[in-house]
């Protein structure tokens, strides 16, 4: 276990970088995901098609392909940036498709009587969504959204494996490849680092799921 205790500061800074990546990706993917979800339920057909195409393409492609495309494809058309920037952008794009689907599933789970009643009292489209549908949809979306975000944290490890420097996963590469530590203790340390976030998050999500569960 010396490998972990001796390099504890490296682990900590890796942890911090991973959390930073996730915080940025969280905000980015929630914003983009919500916009795409709005596209997908809007009365404007071209927007619906655009949203559907986006989700179908992004959701069915592996995150790694997106990462490669951003990091090695974009520079070819003159868009320059760091691995860090490309990595986070790919993670945001990838996660946003799942955020969109979580929100849309929430909207679809609100019974149609609610929307009909809202329309019957004369609410227009935006007010129907804002006052009646979305507050209920959000409750249903909480568990799947939570799973998406936990998955996003785990996916951030792919960025580290890909070469975005400094995050928790890349600590293992630094220590085993560059500094010659034995792989087992280092990897156990990294694994524990991820579990320290994912296990409590999963437990909290289960709790939240019970709290927000409503009968329909």
């Amino acid at each position, binding site marked *: 276990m010396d490998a972990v205790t001796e390099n504890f500061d490296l682990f900590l800074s890796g942890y911090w970088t991973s959390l930073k990546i996730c915080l940025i990706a969280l905000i980015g993917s929630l914003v983009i995901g919500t916009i795409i979800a709005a596209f997908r339920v809007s009365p404007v057909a071209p927007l619906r098609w655009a949203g559907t195409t986006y989700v179908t393409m992004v959701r*069915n492609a592996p995150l790694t392909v997106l990462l490669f495309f951003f990091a090695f494809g974009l520079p070819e058309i003159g868009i320059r940036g760091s691995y860090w920037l490309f990595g986070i952008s790919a993670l945001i794009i990838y996660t946003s498709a799942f955020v969109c689907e979580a929100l849309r599933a929430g909207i679809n789970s609100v019974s149609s009587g609610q*929307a009909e009643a809202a329309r019957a009292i004369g609410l227009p489209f935006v007010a129907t969504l804002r006052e009646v549908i979305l507050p209920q949809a959000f409750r249903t979306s909480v568990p799947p959204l939570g799973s998406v975000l936990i998955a996003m944290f785990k996916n951030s490890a792919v960025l580290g494996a890909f070469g975005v420097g400094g995050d928790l996963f890349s600590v293992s590469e630094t220590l085993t490849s560059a500094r010659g530590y034995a792989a087992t203790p280092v*990897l156990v340390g990294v694994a524990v680092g991820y579990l320290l976030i994912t296990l409590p998050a999963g437990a909290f999500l289960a709790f939240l799921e019970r709290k927000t569960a409503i009968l329909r």
Partner: protein
Amino acid sequence: MSGGLVLYDLPGPRARRRQTMLAIVAGIAVLGVIALVLYRLNQQGQFAAQLWDPLVNPSDKDFSAVWSLIGNGLANTMKAAALAITFSLSVGTVIGVARLMLGKWSRMPVVGFIELFRGLPVVISIFFASRVLPDMGVNLSNWPGGEGLWFVVIGLTAYNSVILAEILRSGVNALPKGQREAASAIGLSGMQTMGLILLPQAVRIMLPALISQLVVILKDTSLAAVLGVYPELLNSAKYIYLNLNNPIQSLIVVGTIFVVINWTLSQLAGWVEQRLSRSTRSPGEETDDEAHYIIDTAEMRQ
């Protein structure tokens, strides 16, 4: 609520005119974005024949080599995914049944195992297999297919078996209570109840979720390219563009292959789901909704 139509009124003449206007504006905006991307690609010479020809023109000198690489990579991806889903299913069934049948205390290790591997990123599981197993003196290099394949399969199985175990468990829990009671009433033992009555029905409800999980596994095989342990499809793309210097083109082709396969599988899952819910629907039965819920969460998981 299905479809967006319930969210807004059937438009009258004025609203229809407004919506048509909006649709035209939005359509132009969408087309504009596409045109901008194409213009940019063209301006940077990304439509040049020398970049595309090895991938799309059979008379190009590299065409056959490129496609045999892609074919090889695809075959390897399929092989890893098929092995991973097979092992995950068998291990997952054992774990799931263990969790369902053991007592409150004796199932603790099983629950711990499930939580542990569910919380671990797959890329770490694969990396772990590729670095720690050799350190422990496990030699996989003379296994059929080479050690890289087994690193990927072991890493994927570690994650997906516990996911499938949980899907199985929610499938069994979603069955009406009467099934278990009836099985006990005719004198079946616990194991017989599980094997003959509960599991077959649970698998039926779960079939769409299982297919969705296959999509996740297929996507995750490409993690091997990042770790550089196994020559699967994305690795082929990497090899091609490093030699021909056409990353955008190779990645578009390989990405499209992934999307087409996974989209087809998702459609299949949806179709199976629809068929199942049509054939099992009876008044007052809850299992259909439960099945929908399982599928929803399964799709989100990645």
